[in-house]
């Protein structure tokens, strides 16, 4: 089957039931997308499917015909750059394991809402667990990115 990942057509030989997460990580070598729970509870595997933040661990590759998939390795518009710059400026990550997913969710939020409030951020980001609890800096990072994009 063919998958459109980060703007490129990729050939994939895999069971159609295989979740996108494992196709990305084990078959295609895109390891920035992380495994945390396997049941769409932690958000570490968040990618964009046709621009919508989605949990790769619960998305069988067989359902992705014609879909445009973007991973942490492939986000490069100005919103994404602003979020990554803010994350680095404020030293948001601690262990960093969840941060690919956090950033994918944050970028999607800022594309929809250029000036989110703390409540907007909490609502949009509540699906992404951070066991280091870097939440205060995640909020600050999103505000910082919004400011730099204004």
């Amino acid at each position, binding site marked *: 089957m063919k998958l459109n990942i980060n703007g490129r057509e990729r050939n994939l030989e895999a*069971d159609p039931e295989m979740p996108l997460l494992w196709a990305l990580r084990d078959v295609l070598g895109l390891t920035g997308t*992380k495994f945390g729970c*396997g049941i769409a509870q932690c958000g570490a595997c968040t990618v964009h499917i046709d621009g919508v933040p989605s949990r790769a661990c619960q998305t069988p590759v067989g359902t992705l015909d014609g879909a445009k998939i973007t991973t942490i390795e492939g986000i490069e518009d100005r919103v994404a750059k602003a979020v990554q710059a803010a*994350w680095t400026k404020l030293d*948001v990550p*601690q*262990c*960093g394991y969840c941060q690919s997913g956090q950033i994918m969710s944050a970028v999607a939020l800022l594309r929809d809402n250029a000036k989110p409030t703390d409540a907007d951020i909490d609502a949009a980001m509540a699906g992404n667990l951070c*066991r280091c609890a870097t*939440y205060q800096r995640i909020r600050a990072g999103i505000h910082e990115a919004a400011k730099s994009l204004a």
Partner: protein
Amino acid sequence: MFANRFLAQRQLGTKRFRPSRRMFLAGTAAAGAGLTIGFAVPGANAQAPAAAAAVNPFGAHIRIGTDNTVTVLSAHMDMGQGAYFGIATLVAEELDAARSQLRVEGASGNLAAYGNVAWGGFAQGTGGSTAMASSWERYRRAGAICRAMLVSAAARAWNVPANEIAVKDGTLFHGPSGRGATFGAMADAAAAEPVPQTVSLKAPGQWTRIGNPAYRRLDSADKSTGKQQFTIDVRLPGMLIAVPVHAPVFGGKLKSFDAAAAKAVAGVVDVVTTSRGLAVLATNTWAARTGAEAIKAEWDQTGAETRSSDAILASYRARVDAAGEHVAASRGNADAALGRATRTLEATYEFPYLAHAALEPLNAVVRRQGDIVEIWGGHQIPDLYAGLAAQALGMSPANIRMHVMKTGGGFGRRAVTDGDVVVEAAEIAKAIGFRAPVKLQWTRETDMAGGRYRPAAVHKLRVGLDAAGNIAGWQHRIAAQSILIGTPFEGGLVKNGVDATSVEGAADTLYALPDLRVEITNMVSPVPVLWWRSVGHTHTAYVMETMIDEIAAATAKDPVALRRQLLAGHPRHLAAIDLAAARAGWGTPLPAGRFRGFAAHESFGTSVGMVAEISMGAGNAFKVERIVAGVACGTAINPDNVRAQVEGAVGFGLGAILREGVTLDGGRVVDTNYDGYRPLRIDEMPKVEVHIVASTAAPTGIGEPGVPPVGPAIANALAAATGKRVRLLPFEKGLST
């Protein structure tokens, strides 16, 4: 192969374990010598810490490349706490290296260079919030020595006096002649210079990196772009993924199994048995996981834990009604003082098992090439794991190479006494004859049901008050499972039946309590327990700090004033308390519906005072709005990282008291994923302000000490709001009963 035994000593729980060289030399006799432990790494080379003097930091601690990179070889692993950056800061400060040329790698296999100084140097390891304390002299000295060698090489090359050479941001200059060179250009020549025996370190006034909040971590960019590599990201040619199948109850043993359905899964290539059960090997994780789920296994449950967690805790509750098995601390005469008391406060507290629930499920990668076996993992005690893997593989530790990886969280879970996932991965690789590299990858469910929890505990406290409202007698009984009893390390770290990690924070309380007795009863279960970020302090601080608050309320005293009264003689602790109280506006009026609570606790040498501000909703519903912390941790090497660690500790501690708890039903773990076991999410994260007590004293810990005061500060705020004392944790349980 056991003839050549290497005895090392370690501590993970508290700063109070001070292994000495005398105890080391006493070998196994050290078992009875105090809070120390000798552990034997099978077959490892004997190597005394005295060899430290012979370590050349140019190469052992710092590698300077001809490409002008400065690679710091870290003795401590980084699970997110920022140890790598702290150590790099120490090196850069003395070496005068540019931030942009710094790299950090995990190192192992050289006890003289990497033994944990705070543990007496007898083992390499990361734990007990000791990374900075252990590195403070070692890595500053390493930086200064390498700087001197670079200067000496430049002086020789340019034929000028060394004292005319200046160093700035990775470059050497000689003003009078106008000559200059990068570190990289001088690296080879510097490596050949004699190692200076004495170097002077910069005075605090000369620091430009240490203590500078604008000097920022090195790994944020990689962690914001998906580039940071963790063990789960290791990919090797031909590598197979192994997903394990473990017993459904703790202590269960594999009786029989049927792997036919697993082997029929496309991509599954093998099924092997291990000392813990089975492992399914496949060409990708999905197939291995699907295969593991298709295994049909029978387990022998003889001797296994089959009780519910409620039944386990009920047995603890029953136990604290009677005198404890062992006395952990005794001052004055608690019983006599209680007999004279005019009032007695009595309270029983219950704490559940807690899971580390780090986001990267446990894993390790093993590859054999020729005679050499390489193991990638979050090696928190790398030499021990190398020795244990060598034992499992029947080979010499000299042929094992450990790759210390950064991990997706840790919180204590990767510091284990038996090698755990490292040994399991080695067994699997051996079982397939090393025909392919193997990555053992636990699932979330394996991880959550894998035990090694924060021990469940029940405390019973009786505190007497005299007519004047002074404390008259303090009797404190704890029933908890020991982390160390039943492990090979029992002999060293458990003294007279008292595991210090069960009673730390209570038996060694800083409060002036002249008539105090702390008793411990070691409860027994096959459920494996382990240190969980701040270890015994996770429960003792809750008990101590909520009771102090209760006493303040019972005697109409201000909780901060009462603490100040009971803590005279502890200026550093008081400084943390005063800073938190001042910055939070303690004692000033609050808007309607808002309430404050106070707690303070010392752990791992660091004092943290904390004010929690909550708002009340309907009934018992409340929201934690703001936490203000005052932190006394000696020199804050990276002040922004100190803040980050305490911010994170607040979220970690808050999640735990609100609703974390491992529930067992018939011995089986009920909640094996984040839908049932629910750490804090962003919508419950309060605003956190962290203030640091200025100091140039040697640094103490910061990874853990932020956790203990969080729960009691919030519980005390809730008591201020409602009068209710939550003594059954988590709150979700305690507020509903």
